[in-house]
């Protein structure tokens, strides 16, 4: 999708010029995130939920837990499914219909962070090996698009997972009976995504919509709780130099630590 033509050239120039002087149109520093507001447990019907506001960007995540069959190659592990919906009310650019490539990419990048950091201990989600396991459905619901959906969604997903409770059960004669009470979903890592936009030759953290519209490319680094990189994704039509990528990795490490304090309380 080229959206660059919707931003006036003079504004594009202004944004790039400001950034080359270390400033941004919304008065943030190059490595500053917008304010993060987080609420958890906002949907009572869902097993877990969270709503994140990153500046004006707004993403809700609902977690539903169902009992289903495991994959045959990992018979004793629960299943993680991440899906993203760019809800038409969130932007004039979003249209109803099946997920397009942007929604699929968003879901898969968030999925990769959770999966590769092994954030959910999926062995604990096995009920009857080879037959029954818990399936964790993570639905990313974009409610307002003002840029950087990846980081907002990843934060909301983690917050929702940390807030998720699974119903208790017992097995009687090979049948699963639901018991009263809930158990916390076992979360053992806290992946945080940090996205950079490349505008001219500079990187800015957490691009808002106008910056996304004028950027050459974006680069997302997901950092686990040990400060290691667990996922990367490049998007957009531009390219990067090696030096910029390594520089970004170090900034991401630091930013992830700051954001983690907001998402993971206590």
């Amino acid at each position, binding site marked *: 999708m*080229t959206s660059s*033509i919707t931003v006036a050239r003079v504004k594009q120039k202004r944004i790039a010029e400001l950034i080359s002087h270390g400033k941004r149109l919304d008065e943030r520093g190059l490595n500053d995130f917008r304010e993060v507001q987080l609420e958890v447990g906002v949907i009572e019907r869902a097993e877990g939920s969270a709503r994140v506001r990153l500046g004006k960007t707004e993403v809700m995540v609902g977690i539903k837990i169902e009992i289903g069959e495991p994959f045959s*190659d*990992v018979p004793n592990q629960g299943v993680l499914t991440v899906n993203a919906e760019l809800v038409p009310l969130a932007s004039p650019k979003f249209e109803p219909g099946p*997920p397009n*490539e942007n929604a*699929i*990419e968003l*879901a*898969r990048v968030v999925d*990769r962070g959770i*999966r*590769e*950091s092994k954030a959910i201990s999926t062995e604990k989600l096995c009920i009857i090996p080879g037959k029954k396991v818990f399936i964790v459905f993570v639905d990313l619901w974009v409610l307002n698009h003002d840029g950087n959906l990846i980081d907002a969604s990843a934060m909301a997903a983690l917050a929702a997972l940390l807030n998720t409770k699974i119903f208790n059960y017992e097995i009687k004669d090979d049948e699963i009976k639901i018991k009263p009470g809930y158990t916390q979903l076992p979360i053992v890592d806290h992946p945080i995504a940090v996205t950079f936009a490349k505008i001219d030759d500079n990187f800015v953290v957490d691009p808002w919509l106008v910056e996304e519209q004028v950027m050459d*490319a974006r*680069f997302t680094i997901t950092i*686990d709780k040990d*400060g*290691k*990189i*667990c*996922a*990367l*994704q*490049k*998007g*957009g*039509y*531009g*390219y*990067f*130099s*090696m030096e910029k*990528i*390594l520089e970004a*990795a*170090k900034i991401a*490490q630091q930013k992830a630590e700051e954001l983690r304090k907001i998402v993971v309380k206590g």
Partner: protein
Amino acid sequence: MRKTHEKLINENSTRLDGRKSNQLRPIKIEVGTLSNADGSAYIEQGKNKILAAVYGPKELHPKHRALPDRALLICRYHMAPFSVQERKSPAPSRREIEISKVIREALEPSVFVEYYPRTSIDIFIEVLQADGGTRCSGITVASLALADAGIPMHDLVSACAAGKVDGQLVLDLNDIEDKEGEADLPLALMPNLNAITLIQMDGDLSINEFEQTLNLAKEGCKQIHALQKDALKAKYAAVKEVVEEK
């Protein structure tokens, strides 16, 4: 994680397919293999067998998708149902849709798209057999198909993955190393410009390991770049021979 093999790298630091850590799989490239396409190429990289074809620049339908200032790149990465162990449904999966997108974004920086406003350049990548690293082989072969179609380009795009297997950093992971290893980092590079046009990663790397893996993948891309150039030249050498015989 399932472990079908105790070790992916033995005590002589040799990998399951006999390679050293910094060694590419055997690569065979042919340019101009399909007669209907404006440009085409075929690659075998280990057990990967991939065809790429380019049609265009051509008129774009539906017209409202046309861009007033440049060509629209359309890319379809697709796997044949018989390309993997368990039959894959021929309908495009979410994985294929994402890979089509990142490949398009990896190739677009190399093309002078502004030369062909309001047109489309269609790139089709068909994976006939897959053995890990198909997005990289796909980019390598599609870039050659673009060159074969005579489309002006800044540079060829060369792609190669590096990653971590059994705690060691290795180049050009095959399927089992990708699935059972600790990290996989596909990289696409325009080697003459030192410009990275695709970077992805899944796994677990410290910042230090990340830097080393990135450098390893970059060296792989450079080796592949040399093979790409040879394959392009070989096509024209063959054409020259035919012409001179007449």
